[in-house]
């Protein structure tokens, strides 16, 4: 019997970073590595880089702004993209 199975893959619904209206920008100097942004990001688009500081994966980050809200050090700001510009 032939079976049809979906395969696990990033971007199952495309490059969801294209949905973004605001872009989270992280100031790693202010970051205390608490990893709350990583914990709360619904997308899993915050990863840990070598040295322990978080990094945002912009291909898929939807720009929800949760990371900026939960950051206790105010190390993340949300920057609105310019009209007509595509934020990748």
């Amino acid at each position, binding site marked *: 019997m032939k079976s049809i199975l*979906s*395969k696990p893959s990033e971007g*199952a619904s495309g490059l969801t970073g294209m949905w973004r209206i605001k872009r989270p920008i992280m100031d790693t100097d202010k970051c205390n590595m608490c990893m709350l942004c990583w914990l709360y990001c*619904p997308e899993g688009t915050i990863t840990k880089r070598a040295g322990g500081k978080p990094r945002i994966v912009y291909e*898929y980050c*939807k720009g929800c*702004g*949760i990371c900026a809200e939960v950051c206790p050090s105010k190390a993340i700001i949300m920057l609105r993209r310019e009209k007509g510009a595509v934020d990748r």
Partner: protein
Amino acid sequence: MSSVLTIKDLTEEEFTLPGNAACPGCAAALSLRIALKVLGPKTIMIVPASCISVIQGYYPKTPCRVPVLNVAFASTAAAGSGAVAALELKGKSGVKVLCWAGDGGTADIGLQALSGAAERNENMIYVCYDNEAYMNTGTQRSGATPRAAFTTTTVTGKLERKKSVPEIMIAHRIPYVATACAAFPLDFASKLKRAESMPVRGLKYIHLLSPCPPGWRFPAEKTVEVGKLAVMTGMWILYEWYDGGYNLTGPSKALLEKSRRRPLKDYLSIQGRFGHLKEEDLESLQRDVDEHWEEFSKKLGIRA
């Protein structure tokens, strides 16, 4: 709760891959991400029609790195029971069955299958992520929609009260019942950990409040704040029930005294779905919360 997990206890490995169909700020997507970190790759998910069935993706790609069985709306717990039986027949141990259904799929259409599975005490975990309406089809009211909330089928506010599925599950005397809230992911993770590591076989049920930006009408970045306020105002109580007794968990532990709770208005006023309420409606809903706590406090410390 004996052990509360910390951020460091959660694996960095992701089992829901980025780039899925969830709305920005979706608490259900956040919670599923956390849940699979706790349960790990040896998990089979059973998902009925819901937002998660959309998030879980269309052929040929899925964000889920565990097997997912997509089933008809009413049948989550029945399909989960079947998966448990199949695993047993094949002699496969160590594989967890996780039923993951919405409030419509749990409190309404899936309740019969869930009650049957609870009565048979099937060996699986059932999480109801409760966004308090049928969100995937455009915000129709469910049995779990709270009183007074706007939905597209309760345009002047729902008249009836929220149905308590966790209390219904406690009445089945299964080994473990808990409530959780997506804004407290470590509390939720700890409860899942307890549910999966209980030596006793049987159904473990977690009812997870899951704020939904488009359905509750608040901006996506406020998901965590809204969820926290649900708990801090006492609108949503975090507890566990096992061995015949209740325990408050997380911030709810400190909220038995009314003066410690935030005014309910703080929670309602930041959501568009309660935007039509007048002062007297707010007072009436506040009385509901106070009465609920009074009723609830009587159950604490009672070991049946």
